[in-house]
């Protein structure tokens, strides 16, 4: 890997903490972003010559801050600061900043930056686009590609989000413990939303979103190393993302978990997910992310689909139902229940959900599958027809069509 690739990577890696610190300093997102951009440009010029600094984030913060102040001073015709070549050679100048960055200060900075992106005034799509642009540093074309929208639309989404943030009341004082926990919960929900945008899309181009979400989770874990729910969320995403190489066949069709070639699963991601889940469980503070990760881990531990511990998964979904009651959770549980106690039991469990899930593709897919297992072909066909009408992606529709074809072959 050449120097420029390293520098680019180091700048990207330092971006969240640098932008976050600059935001605290300038209390304005636009100024913080511009200051960071200027610092990044100067890094690209200076680092190949002088070598990378010991602490990339501290360098970018210092240079970005000076560059922005310099701009202000130039306008008021005051004295310029020394050129950043000089600054980068002064290790002493970095030290006080590095110290400040090490503490809780820096943790609250990054949390604040992420929290601003989750502002309740912003619809979810704008929250995600803003976080990807400002915190991850993805370009507008990259974001457009991830959302499968045009670049103009992506640009507009980000511009609108920024305009709303600029008008919004941003909390700059250090949060108390309760408020910090609340912010963390909101930020975690957004990170998982980013992951799901990439995961449930059923299109390989959107995987970048999953990678970004995992990067966010690792960032949060470094800031809050002892939070079992962050470990659980990171584990859940790693375990699910580990299945990616097996989730689509050569034609881009979705391959269901039961039918996936498990040899294709990414062993490294899976192992990291399992390790994080184990760390989380030592805390004995169960939470919804940990339970979902435990479900994913049960799948990951089964070498073949038929080895799956469905009774264990059924029990985990029962726990999740208690923590986070929702018809979708019950629907998922019914799949496990059907494996343990037969399709009749599963069907019984999901039938009361029909009103609430009448617009949900997966409900009719599951219902059709259970009816087909029970030999109730005509009813199965009705359910599959409804599923096809609700399919969100070609892969989902193709999957249901295969069921219908199989029903036709079975001669009904």
């Amino acid at each position, binding site marked *: *890997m050449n120097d420029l690739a390293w520098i680019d990577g180091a700048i990207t*890696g330092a971006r969240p903490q640098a932008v976050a610190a600059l935001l605290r300093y300038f209390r304005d997102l636009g100024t913080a972003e511009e200051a960071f951009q200027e610092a990044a440009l100067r890094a690209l010029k200076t680092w190949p010559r002088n070598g990378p600094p010991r602490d990339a984030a501290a360098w970018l913060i210092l240079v970005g801050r000076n560059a922005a102040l310099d701009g202000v001073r130039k306008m008021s015709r005051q004295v310029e600061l020394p050129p950043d070549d000089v600054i980068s050679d002064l290790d002493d100048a970095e030290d006080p900043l590095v110290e400040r960055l090490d503490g809780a200060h820096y943790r609250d900075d990054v949390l604040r930056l992420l929290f601003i992106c989750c502002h309740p005034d912003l619809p979810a799509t704008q929250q995600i686009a803003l976080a990807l642009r400002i915190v991850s540093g993805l370009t507008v074309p990259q974001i457009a590609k991830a959302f499968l929208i045009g670049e103009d639309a992506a640009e507009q989404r980000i511009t609108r989000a920024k305009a709303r943030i600029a008008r919004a009341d941003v909390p700059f004082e250090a949060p108390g413990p309760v408020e910090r926990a609340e912010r963390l919960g909101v930020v975690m929900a957004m990170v998982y939303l980013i992951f799901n945008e990439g995961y449930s899309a059923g299109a390989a181009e959107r995987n970048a979103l999953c990678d970004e979400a995992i990067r966010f989770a690792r960032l949060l874990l470094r800031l809050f190393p002892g939070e079992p729910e962050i470990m659980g969320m990171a584990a859940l995403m790693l375990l699910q993302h580990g299945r990616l190489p097996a989730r689509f066949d050569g034609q881009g069709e979705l391959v269901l978990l039961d039918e996936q070639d498990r040899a294709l699963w990414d062993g490294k991601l899976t192992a990291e997910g399992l390790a994080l889940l184990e760390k989380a469980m030592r805390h004995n503070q169960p939470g919804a992310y940990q339970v979902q990760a435990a479900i994913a881990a049960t799948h990951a531990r089964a070498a073949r689909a038929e080895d799956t511990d469905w009774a264990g998964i059924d029990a985990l979904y029962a726990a999740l139902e208690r923590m986070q009651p929702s018809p979708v959770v019950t629907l998922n549980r019914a799949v496990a229940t059907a494996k343990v106690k037969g399709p009749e039991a599963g069907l019984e469990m999901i039938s009361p959900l029909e009103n609430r899930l009448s617009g949900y593709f997966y409900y009719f897919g599951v219902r059709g599958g259970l009816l087909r297992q029970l030999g109730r072909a005509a009813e199965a066909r009705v359910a599959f027809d409804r599923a096809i009408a609700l399919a969100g992606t070609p892969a989902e529709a193709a999957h249901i069509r295969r069921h219908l074809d199989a029903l036709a072959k079975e001669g009904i």
Partner: protein
Amino acid sequence: MLYAILCYHDEQFVWSWTKEQEAAVIGGLKGVHETLTREGKLGPSLRLMPTTAATTLSKSKDLVLDGPFAETKEQLLGLYVIDVDGLEAALEVARQLARANPGGSYELRPIAAYNPDPREAPVAG
């Protein structure tokens, strides 16, 4: 003489490598590994999971902490590679070692990839 070469880098950067970047680095390393293996110089090598997967046992207090070992006043003095079922079993091994050798800390870090000692591998026909 046996030497350990300890690898330091910015994990935020390394664990953000794209598949292509990763393949390029691993490919380059493989070439070096092959040369060293032919020369009989290479022992076991391994890649650790990120520090976010680490757990630290503070030996004197028998305190288990999440995250990597962060005390800069102590130095890295040795390491074990152990093969166990999971974190609890690894902690149990660490406690056994701690009873024999109290003081300081053990950081338990899962291994992401392990290349066994090529000098002990059966020679390929």
